[in-house]
């Protein structure tokens, strides 16, 4: 098939799935935080609030976009689109799975593979700060300006430990391409411990995650939008889709950080167990989830549960059946297994992001800076030195 048509199809699929996932990530976040705080969260729009993201999108699009009279118009309008475009671009180099052959077409489950893929993600994320900084400055509002300033200072500071933490697995695998990075992590030590970078590089992984929280402006590092002192921080003056663009950028950055962490440290789409056992885990997970849902549907606690839970259970059983079917069809198995393990790892990391937001209070500004320069930076530096020493000694 023509290269351009194939690329367009892949880009369309990835863009559609990513944008839907971003909308539903927000639903999941509200649900998880609600349950942490003993509430139910979105519940009215659709069963269990499942149509809430759709309602939110319609609301944000049809809302009047107010442009305050005192803003610097060009930069004010440019900032949200800059933020969201730069946040979405990184997905182009993220691989979701191995090479697959469907009929006559052989392709990678990835939009494009750069030899400098990891540097590309770092470069795009390092420019991403301008969206927030400009938005804060162009609003001509002291709270927005403070938010933008904090954000740029924070992102410069945390980019250093982030970059150093990324460098250690690069040293081990000796590559800058995501595909080769995952290929390096294939296999098992002693037959059952996966050869993932997270085991030798546990320090680097922790530093990467913490710096990732700061780079995405998430709790406990969400100083740029600290409500109790800055109203809403850098997006105080924004409304309708311009406001939504900042939110989309935040969630897209979260997905990028967790996907990169998965690829660099957690073996990408590779399963955590040796081949024959790992095939049955998705079936077991989905079948068990479906059976639990059907059981609760037969003993309903609320009125609507009689309908919603059995339907969910049947869908889950259907997915389990699909995985069972895939054991007979090799192509389907390659695609489904890669997607399952990749999404499972990214999903667990995203859950950690939400979980931390539900439990941890915000840092004070001086604590934030001291933590980066006195805590994380020396640790990641030492980690990099130790890794370099081991690699140099063992590569003779």
């Amino acid at each position, binding site marked *: 098939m023509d290269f351009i048509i194939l690329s367009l199809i892949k880009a369309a699929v990835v863009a559609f799935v990513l944008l839907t996932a971003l909308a539903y990530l927000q639903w999941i976040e509200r649900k998880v935080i609600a349950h942490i705080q003993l509430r139910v969260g979105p519940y009215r729009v659709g069963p269990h609030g499942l149509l809430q993201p759709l309602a939110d999108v319609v609301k944000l699009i049809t809302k009047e976009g107010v442009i305050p009279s005192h803003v610097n118009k060009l930069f004010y309008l440019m900032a949200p689109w800059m933020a969201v475009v730069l946040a979405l671009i990184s997905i182009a180099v993220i691989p979701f799975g191995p090479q697959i052959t469907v009929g006559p077409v052989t392709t990678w489950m990835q939009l494009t593979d750069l*030899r*400098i893929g990891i*540097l590309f993600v*770092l*470069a795009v994320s390092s*420019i991403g700060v301008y969206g927030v*900084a400009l938005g804060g400055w162009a609003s001509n509002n002291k709270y927005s300006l403070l938010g933008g300033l904090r954000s740029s200072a924070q992102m*410069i500071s945390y*980019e250093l430990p982030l970059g150093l933490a990324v460098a250690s697995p690069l040293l081990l695998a000796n590559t*800058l391409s995501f595909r080769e990075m995952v290929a390096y992590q294939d296999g098992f030590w002693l037959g059952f411990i996966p050869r993932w970078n997270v085991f030798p590089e546990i320090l680097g992984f922790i530093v990467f995650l913490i710096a990732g929280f700061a780079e995405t402006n998430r709790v406990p590092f969400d100083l740029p939008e600290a409500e109790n002192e800055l109203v809403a921080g850098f997006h105080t003056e924004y409304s309708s889709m311009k406001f939504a663009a900042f939110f989309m950028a935040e969630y897209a950055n979260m997905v990028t950080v967790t996907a990169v962490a998965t690829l660099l440290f957690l073996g990408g789409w590779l399963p955590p167990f040796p081949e024959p056992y790992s095939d049955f885990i998705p079936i077991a997970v989905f079948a068990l989830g479906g059976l639990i849902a059907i059981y609760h549907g037969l003993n309903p606690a609320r009125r609507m549960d009689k309908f919603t839970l059995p339907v969910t259970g049947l869908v889950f059983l259907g997915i389990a059946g699909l995985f069972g079917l895939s054991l007979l069809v090799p192509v389907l198995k390659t695609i489904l297994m890669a997607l399952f393990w990749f999404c499972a790892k990214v999903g667990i990391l995203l859950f950690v992001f939400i979980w931390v937001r539900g439990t941890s209070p915000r840092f004070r500004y001086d604590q934030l800076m001291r933590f980066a320069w006195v805590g994380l930076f020396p640790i990641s530096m030492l980690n990099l030195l130790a890794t370099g020493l081991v690699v140099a000694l063992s590569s003779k």
Partner: protein
Amino acid sequence: MTALIFFIFAGIAVFCAINLVAQTHPIASALSLIGVMGSLAILYLQLGGEFIAAAQVIVYAGAIMVLFVFVIMLLNAGAEGTSLQVSQFAKYLGIVLLAAFLGLISFIIQSMLPRTEGVVFGAFQGGTALDVGRKLFTVYLLPFEVTSVLILIAIVGAIVLARKEI
């Protein structure tokens, strides 16, 4: 195709560079400089220097310019007023004369240089991270180390200047 991309981004680079000088507001100038650096990175990429292109974006556009923007925002620098009062006629004449002068200089320099063959996009293959690293740690090891000592001295100097008592 490659020539088209080259002309687009070379044009953007030149436009941003002129805009950088023409703008009166510091933030607009800083953003133009980012535009220059971004399009330069694309030109490096076309020439096969992929590592240099990535480093250009990460270090210059991503780190140094963020500091520039940060300082401009922190000092809250406003637009500069133009102090020079010149007539419209002189301004337009100046543009034409400047273009002629620069054209003349570039023609003289070009005729003085030895003849070289044109650049072929995609012909140069030694721009990967591996090649750059190998060169840096073998052929250019001494300049590399000397540069890092120089930067260390600059950091220490900045701290000494910034702090009253140590």
